[in-house]
């Protein structure tokens, strides 16, 4: 139970941090914000790495590798496309 309360504490505080930080993002950057935050939600990748790496049964390995593929697409695609977009935002010459 104590572990759960600690995790819940982190969860609730992180939501508040999220609200504080995200409300400061201007509307002009909302698309990069979505693709960028999307890349961050690909953090599930580390759970997938642990699951696949255990090599427990062929089934857990298969599910783990599938999760790695999907999460890696999310991470690599997300950060890269965000980078591509942000590079287009220029000031007046």
């Amino acid at each position: 139970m104590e572990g759960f309360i600690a995790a819940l504490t982190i969860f609730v505080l992180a939501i508040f941090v999220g609200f504080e930080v995200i409300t400061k993002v201007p509307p002009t950057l909302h698309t990069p914000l979505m693709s960028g935050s999307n890349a961050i939600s690909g953090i599930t990748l580390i759970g997938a790495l642990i699951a696949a790496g255990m090599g427990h049964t062929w089934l857990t390995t298969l599910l783990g590798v599938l999760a790695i593929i999907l999460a890696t697409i999310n991470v690599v695609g997300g950060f890269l496309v965000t980078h591509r977009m942000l590079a287009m935002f220029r000031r007046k010459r």
Partner: protein
Amino acid sequence: MSATWQNLAYLIAAVLFILGLKGLAHPRSAPRGNLLGALGMLLAIVATLAGGGIIGWGWIFVGLAIGGVIGLVLALKVQMTAMPQMVALLNGFGGAASFLVAATALALQAEVPAGFTLQFTIATAASGVVGSVTFWGSLVAFWKLQGLPGENWQGFPGVQLVNIVLVLLCVALGWIIVAQPPAIGVYWLLVLVAAVLGVLLVVPIGGADMPVVIALLNSYSGVAAAATGFVLSNSVLIISGSLVGASGLILTAIMCKAMNRSLPNVLFAKFGGESSAPKADDIYEGKVKATTAEELAMMLEDARRVVFIPGYGMAVAQAQYAVRDLANLLESRGINVEYAIHPVAGRMPGHMNVLLAEANVPYEKLREMDDINPEMAQVDVAIVLGANDVVNPLARADGNSPIAGMPIIDADKARQVVVVKRSLSPGYAGIPNPLFAADNTVMFFNDGNKAVQEIIAAVKAT
């Protein structure tokens, strides 16, 4: 690497994510912010791999390589107009990864049945439901945005009733997982039911409401990651998941506010075309004035301040490059040119800004609705291009209209208004637009791109 060092590395990764999102507060600091986020991710991955306990290295690298290449190709090839589909797809993949990881964790934990905690089982069920809904809902959103066959299918009568039954079924199946773990078969049944729910939740939603759906699915993908964090008792997953969940929720709220509709109304109600709206003929009859490129060129010659009001139609016509050329031409003659962007102008939050940025329009020239509206009376010419409902004055006046109360860009307050449009056809709301018949409005009936090209030629000729 000991668990202590690993957790410290995760803490640094979480801090980098927060700093990265903080960087997005300004276009200048945003590229660095994105790099910080990527650095945090790399650190978390390395810390996980160095953490020990990993036997199957081969499969891990196969997975990373396949996913990396697909992600690379997707990110480099995607057109900016297709960004909503891309983000929908990425949302979905994140959700799918979450329910797969939860499934693996459940299978591994089944070896030590005594180890099941309430946190683990509840989080696993949540991860399965939210992950699956996110994945299948995102696929439907992708399907609709990509314009694949059947995109306009909006479900069957009573679809919301079926959804309520599916939600109750999910709760019941989740309860079994919590009460009698491991229940692996029940978990997969839960994922299946949630899949149907995900499809049926998004199917009834129309094209122009997609910004809300994508933002909401964005939030869901974060919630799924956070739930997986509770499954694995992993703090960096919980932190990142809640950051993304909060972000998606804020964007959802902003989009709903920009349409003056509640989230349940967007998700569950049919929209537009109410009979209470005034008849198109009564409004347009004898009052609509068509114009030519030459007349517009003369009008622009005398202007000192011009504002473009772009809508999604501009992107469809690929007219943003021509618009930029016209803007450059006008600026070279000392005319001030800006762009007024409505929050729901594109197919996702901020979409219009990216499309104009791609066409080399400096970001200082992209003005927010609330920011530019007080100045609209000082604008000499407002050029509405591919937008309709977001400049409809009925939103301010008519209490019965489906768009009543929706904040609009006050195009009608400009001294002269030019509407570039193929015909007088209504927008998504299905109602006529009195702006087209206003005294200070002229219509230029033409394809968006061709229209702007012709205006450029006419301005050069004067």
